[in-house]
């Protein structure tokens, strides 16, 4: 129990002291996961709308692949992206390996199927005749999509939360393509693993508390937006 008590005391100390290194790690975590979530929202919602609203041969296979992607192990995403970005790899010339950009790409790869899958479910859960009603109101194609997104906004916010939750807490991909470089690619999860490995449980617990708090705060804000809506 001493370890936990010491850990929480240390966490409080680091938070209250606004430790520059911890602050930097926290901000980078938010930046990387926030950017990855933003990418996944743009790509995932667009792809989910197209897949959910269209009829095409092989649709079930595509939906199955997306659903499988929702459970994509971060280390697999990290491995795949590492090979692509490796100095001698197909995208090695970009020089992105061990940069925050690579971490955004890896986390985006993890979050996009989650957002896409939930979006497909959300769109398919809307009344089938609603699209006809929107068209009957005289909406253009763009207006139709926007109105459908608005109608599905509650599950879509859940998709954003699931996407963000999936990437802020992942470690495998971040450590593989980011490298946990101090002051450059070290985020809350990679730092926690490192400190645990060193036996610095108090710092590791402190970082975990911060990670949980950040996740809780972001999800609380998104939940506030979501629950502002009254149930139908």
């Amino acid at each position, binding site marked *: 129990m001493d370890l936990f008590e010491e850990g929480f005391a240390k966490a409080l100390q680091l938070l209250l002291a606004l430790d520059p290194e911890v602050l930097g790690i926290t901000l980078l975590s938010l930046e990387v996961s926030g950017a990855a979530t933003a990418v996944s929202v743009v790509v995932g919602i667009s792809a989910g709308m197209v897949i959910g609203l269209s009829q095409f041969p092989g649709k079930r296979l595509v939906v199955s692949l997306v659903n499988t992607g929702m459970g994509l192990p971060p280390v697999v995403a990290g491995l795949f992206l590492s090979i692509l970005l490796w100095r001698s790899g197909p995208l090695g010339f970009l020089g992105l390996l061990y940069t925050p950009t690579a971490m955004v790409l890896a986390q985006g790869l993890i979050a996009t199927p989650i957002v896409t899958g939930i979006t497909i479910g959300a769109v398919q859960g809307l009344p089938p005749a609603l699209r006809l009603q929107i068209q009957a109101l*005289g909406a253009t194609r763009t207006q139709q999509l926007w109105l459908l997104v608005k109608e599905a906004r509650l599950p879509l916010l859940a998709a954003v939360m699931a996407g963000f939750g999936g990437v802020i807490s992942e470690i495998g991909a971040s450590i593989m393509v980011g490298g946990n470089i101090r002051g450059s690619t070290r985020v809350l999860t990679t730092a926690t693993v490192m400190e645990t490995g060193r036996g610095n449980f108090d710092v590791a617990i402190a970082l975990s508390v911060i990670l949980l708090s950040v996740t809780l705060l972001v999800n609380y804000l998104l939940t506030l937006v979501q629950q502002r809506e009254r149930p139908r």
Partner: protein
Amino acid sequence: MSQAAILEARGLVVERGGVKVLGIPAFRLEEGEFVSLIGPNGSGKSTLLLTLMCLLPRAAGQVLWRGAPVATGGDAVAHRRRMAMVFQEPLLFRATVYENVASGLRIRKVPRAEERRRVGASLEQFGLAAMAGRSAGMLSGGEMRRVSLARALVVEPEVVLLDEPFANLDLPTRQGITDDLERVLHETGAAAVLVTHDQSEALRLSDRIVVMQRGEVVQSDAPAAVMNEPANEFVASCMGMETVVEGTVARQVGGEIVMAVAGREISAIGTALPGQPVYCCIRPEHVTIDTTNPAGSSSARNVYPARIDGVSSMGPYLKVRLDCGFPLVATVTGESFTTLGLARGRQVFASFKATAVHVIGRAC
């Protein structure tokens, strides 16, 4: 041909999975006209509305607006913006009543001041002014239908397509909403096509009734004509002719046909060749029930001893099923039923005039 109809379809064919579900050689809706589409489920009524709105792909044919063919793409959007459609389900947005009613105007990018004026007026028209700020999801079924109608009519459409918008509503609510719709359509002069299963609603509201069966128009005529002179036995049953019996023309006497029906004779006005197979159609409200033989006191040509086989309530009326050699249905008021001492199994006399019988030719 008269001047171009406001909305028209020519040679319309719609297929689903390679199977033809709609085949309409010609359909016209005139300025300010109210047309009701009647027919059983699956007869193509809703498909016709969706096709007129250019919401379904056509295998063949054209939709025309004031004589000009409507193309697909942007032209179809412009076409839809001249019209409005109300579906069976209210299909309201997850928003307030005001925002729902304003949605069509916002799609058309109507300035906000104009939007407020028109939405305010529409909410008043449909008795929704007090609930403008309420969430649409918290409304009752009847209120949702009102919002749905207000949303459709606030855009001031020239044609309104109504796909059973009053289905599953209780009678008083349905009556109130129908009254409001009738009033607004009268004020705006918009033409309308209503899909309904309720013949009394169709008779009350329509300038013309179109009866559909298996994706085709069976009869298109004024309400009185469809009601009293149905084109075939299917239209007869659709329009509430409860008695449709098979018979054969026995003889022609002057302007009167006498038909043999299940060992009895039924007289009707008209001409037909002896031996011709026919259907005799009789509306229940044209049948009179007496406890004594009315032959001497009534002008009815057709009088039969009958037994009451069954009675069912239809609100203020009772539907009485009679067996007079052939099945016959009559309607009587509850008061008459009690006064005459009618009951199931009782022997009575059923009578109806020759003019009450509509005769339709029948294939052998």
